C-alpha cells in the first residue's frame, strides 16, 4: 500500500515538474545561440574570410561547434586570448596556415589607374568601395576593414593596402617605446 502511494506521489511530482519544465522551455525559449553572438562580438568583423569561412559569423558558429579558435589573423593574439577565456579552452598561437598578424591596413585605389571594372566593388564585404562601371572607384577609408579581398580581383593591380596613419586622435601614449610626450611629474621637489 505504502509502496503504491509513494509511487503515485512520485509519479504526480514527476508529472508536475515535467509540466513546469515543459512550459518553461517554451516560455523562456532562447532565440538562436547566445554563444555564437558572444563569439561574434569578439571577432574583429573584418569579414576577410582568412579563417576559411565566408565572414565572421560563420566562423563564430563554427567555433561554437568546437572549431579551433586560432584561425583569425586580423584579431591576432588578443582575439585568441578573449576567445580562449570565453570558450574555456587553452589559448594557442595563431595558426600560420591562415595568415600572419599584421598592422591595421586600409585599401587605397590609385585612382588614375582605375579602369572602372567594378570587380573590387563586388568583392568588398562591407560596401566600402564607391564607383560605377567605367568610372573611377574610390575607397571609403573610414569604412574599410582592411580585409584584402579587393586586391586580387583588380585586373590592373591599382589597389594598395597601406597601414593606417596615426593621427593625434588615434595616438596612444606609450612610454615604454619612447619617452615622447613624457610628463615631468616629480620634477618639482
Amino acid at each position, binding site marked *: 500500500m505504502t509502496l503504491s502511494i509513494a509511487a503515485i506521489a512520485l509519479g504526480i511530482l514527476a508529472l508536475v515538474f515535467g509540466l513546469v519544465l515543459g512550459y518553461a522551455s517554451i516560455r523562456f525559449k532562447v532565440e538562436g545561440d547566445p554563444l555564437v553572438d558572444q563569439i561574434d562580438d569578439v571577432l*574583429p*568583423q573584418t569579414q576577410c574570410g582568412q579563417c576559411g569561412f565566408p565572414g565572421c559569423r560563420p566562423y563564430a558558429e563554427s567555433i561554437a561547434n568546437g572549431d579551433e579558435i586560432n584561425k583569425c589573423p586580423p584579431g591576432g593574439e588578443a582575439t585568441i586570448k578573449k576567445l580562449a577565456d570565453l570558450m574555456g579552452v587553452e589559448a594557442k598561437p595563431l595558426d600560420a596556415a591562415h595568415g600572419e598578424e599584421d598592422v591595421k591596413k586600409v585599401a587605397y585605389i590609385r585612382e588614375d589607374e582605375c579602369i572602372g571594372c567594378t570587380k573590387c566593388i563586388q568583392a568588398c564585404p562591407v*560596401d566600402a568601395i564607391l564607383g560605377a562601371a567605367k568610372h573611377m572607384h574610390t575607397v571609403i577609408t573610414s*569604412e574599410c576593414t582592411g580585409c584584402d579581398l579587393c586586391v586580387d580581383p583588380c585586373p590592373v593591380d591599382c589597389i594598395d593596402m597601406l597601414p593606417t596613419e596615426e593621427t593625434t586622435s588615434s595616438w596612444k*601614449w606609450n612610454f615604454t617605446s619612447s619617452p*615622447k610626450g613624457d*610628463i*615631468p*611629474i616629480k620634477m*618639482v621637489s
Partner: protein
Amino acid sequence: MKYPSFDNIINNLSAGKLHSFPGGVHPDDKKSLSNTTAIAKCPLPKQLIVPVKQHVGIDGAICVSVGDHVLKGQALTHSNAAFSVPVHAPSSGHVSAIVPHVVAHPSGLTEMCIVIDTDGRDTWCDLSPMMDYSHRNKSELLEVLCKSGISGMGGAGFPSHIKAAPSKPIEFLIINGVECEPYITSDDRLMREHAWQIRQGLDILSHIIEPKAIVVAIEDNKPEALQALTIACQDKPEYRVVSVETKYPAGGEKQLIQVITGREVPRSGLPSDIGVTMFNVGTCFAIADAVLHGKPLIERVVTLTGEAIDNPGNYQVLLGTPVNHLLATGGYLADKQTTPKIVMGGPMMGFTLADAAIPVVKTTNCLLVPSNNELRDDSAERACIRCSACSDACPANLLPQQLYWHAKAQEYDKTEEYDLFDCIECGACAYVCPSEIPLVHYYRQAKSEIRSQKDEKDKAEKAKLRFEARKERLQREKEEREEKHRKAKEARLTAKAAPSPSSQSDNVSGQGNSTAKDKVAAALARAKAKKAAVQEDSSDGSSAPVASEDDKKAKVAAAIARAKAKKAVAQAQSNQEQVPPPQNSMNTEDDKKAKIAAAIARAKAKKAATQEQTSVEDNDTKQARIAAAVAKAKAKRAEQQSNTVVENAQGKTEEVDASIVNAAPKDEKQARIAAAVAKAKARRNAVVEQPIKETEEASFAASDNIDPSEEKKRRIAAAVAKAKAKKAAANKESQ
C-alpha cells in the same frame, strides 16, 4: 550623498565658509619666477603657424587659400558644426602654405596648419564691436562667441559658446582664477593688470547665462590678483570674489566646484547637471575682447618660465607664434640644458614638446624650460611598497595603486572597475609616490588603450552592420531576379497557350529549339513574321530604317512605322503568312552593311521588342539578345523586299538583276538613304490611297514625286531593294 541646497551654499559663502576636496598636495609653486614682471608683448614673428584645430571638437572648414592676403583678425576657417570654432589670422600677411605641421600635442604628430608670412604692418580687418550687448539677445551673443573663436583657455579648450548655452538652469557661474599648478602665472598677471576687462567679460557671461549667483575664485597665494578683482567687482555685491585655500589641484573644474559649492559632479555628467558652470579668467578676458572690441581670439598671455630662461615672465603672444620665437624673445639659455627640453603646460600636467617649431595655441598657458638641476630626470622607478600615500593624495578619491597594478598588468576591464576614467590626471599621486613611480603614465596609457579598443569595437560593429546589410541586399536582388524570371516564364507560357497569330506560332518553334543558332533563327523568323503581318495588312512598305547616314529622318520614319506596325499587328490576326528564314540571303548579302544597319536598329528594336514581342526578351542571355537584335534588323530589311516579291514582284526579276549589277558596287550608302526616303514617301502615299497597294508601285510613285536630281539614286535603291527581294523570294520558294 549630501547635495547642499542653493540657499545653504549662499549662506556658507556669505559666512566665508568653503568646502574642501579630498587629497591634494602642496608642491613648491615657483610662481615668483615669472609673476614679478608685467605682461610683455612678444614681437611679431616672421611666420605664424595657425593650427586649424585648437580646441576640443571638430575643426572648421578652411576658407582661405595659399597666396591670399589676410588681415589681422580675419577668419581663416568657419564653423560648420556645433563643436567647431573658427581660427583667425593673428596678424596681417600672406598665406604661404596650408600644410600639416607638428602641433601642440604630446605625440608630436602633425595636423593641418595655415602658415602666414606676416607683412609687419599688423593691419586689422574691420571690427564690429557690440557695445550694447545688454540689449542683444543671447543667441546673438553666443554667435559672437562662436565666430570669435572663443574656447576655454584654462587648458581643455572646450568651445565657450556651447558652455555658455547650458541645457539646464544654472545656479552658480564660477570664474576660475585659481591657477593652482606650479610655475604658471599667466592668469595671475592677467587678473592683476586687466581686472576690469575680466569683470566686463563676467558681465557678458552673466547676461548670457543668467545664473542665480556668481563666484570669482582666486587662490590665496595671489593676494594682488584677489585685490584687483575685488576692486573691479566692488560695485556689484552679487559678484562674490572668494579666496580659496592653496592646494593642488584646486583649479581643477570638479575640485573647484566641490570647494565652492560642496557638490560633486557626477561621474559621466557635466557641471551643468548640478547647476554649475565654470569659465577661466582668460576666457572672460577674451569674451570681453570679442564682444566689446569685436576682436576675435588671436592672442593670449603665456608664461615663459624655468631656470633656462633669461627673462622669465608673461608674454602677450599671438596664437601661431612658434615656440622657438618666444624662447628667443625670453632669452633661452642653452647651456643650462644638456638636452633641449620644453614643457608645454605646467610641471604636473603638461607635456614635453617634440619640436621647438610647435606654435602657441589657444590652450597654451605656460612654457616651462627647466635647467638640468631643476628636474630630476632619472626615472628610477622602484617597486610599489603599498604605502597608500597616493590614495591619500588623490583628489578624486580613487585607489591609485590598484589602478597602477591593473594598468601595468593590462587588465583594462579591472582598471575601469576601479574608475580609471574619473582620474583627472593631476599627477598628485605621482608627486607623493616614494617609489617615484610615474603613475599617471600608466593611467594615460591604459586610458588611451581602452579608448582605442572601444573605437575598434565600434568600427567592428559598424563593419558587421554593413556586412549584414550587404548580405541582405544581395539576397534581395537574387530574389528579385528570380521573381522576374518566373514572371517572364509565365508570360511566355500564357502567350504559347493563346490562339496563335503568326508571330506567336513562330515563337513556338523558336522555343522548341535550344541551341544558340536555333534561337537566332527563331528570332529572325519572329521578326519577319511580325513585319510580314504589318506589311500585309497595311501594305505601306514601312520598315525600320536602313539608312545609316540620315539618321534623324530615318528615325522619324521608323517611329511612325513602328506605331503603325503595332496597330497593324493588333488588327492582322488573320493575316498569316509563312515566312522563310532568310539565313541564305543574309549570308550572301554584304555583312558589314547589315551590321551597321543592325547597330542602329538594335536600340530601336530593343525598345520595340519590349512592347511588340516579349518573347524576344525571354531569351535572356545577352548574346541571344544581341543576335536577335542583329537578326531582326537584317530580317526587317530582307523581309520588306521579300514580301513585295511574294506578292507581286515576280515578273520584274530580270530587270532587277540587270540593275543590281550596276548599282550594288556603286554608292550603296546613298542608295540606301534614297531607298529610305522613297519608302517613307511610299508609305505616305499608301496612307492616302487605298490600303492594298503594292510596294513596287509605291516606290515608283515616290520616284515621281522626288526631285529629278536624285532620281538616279532612287532608281539604284529600288534596284537594290528588288535584288534583295528576289533573293528572299528564292529562299522562300526553296522552303
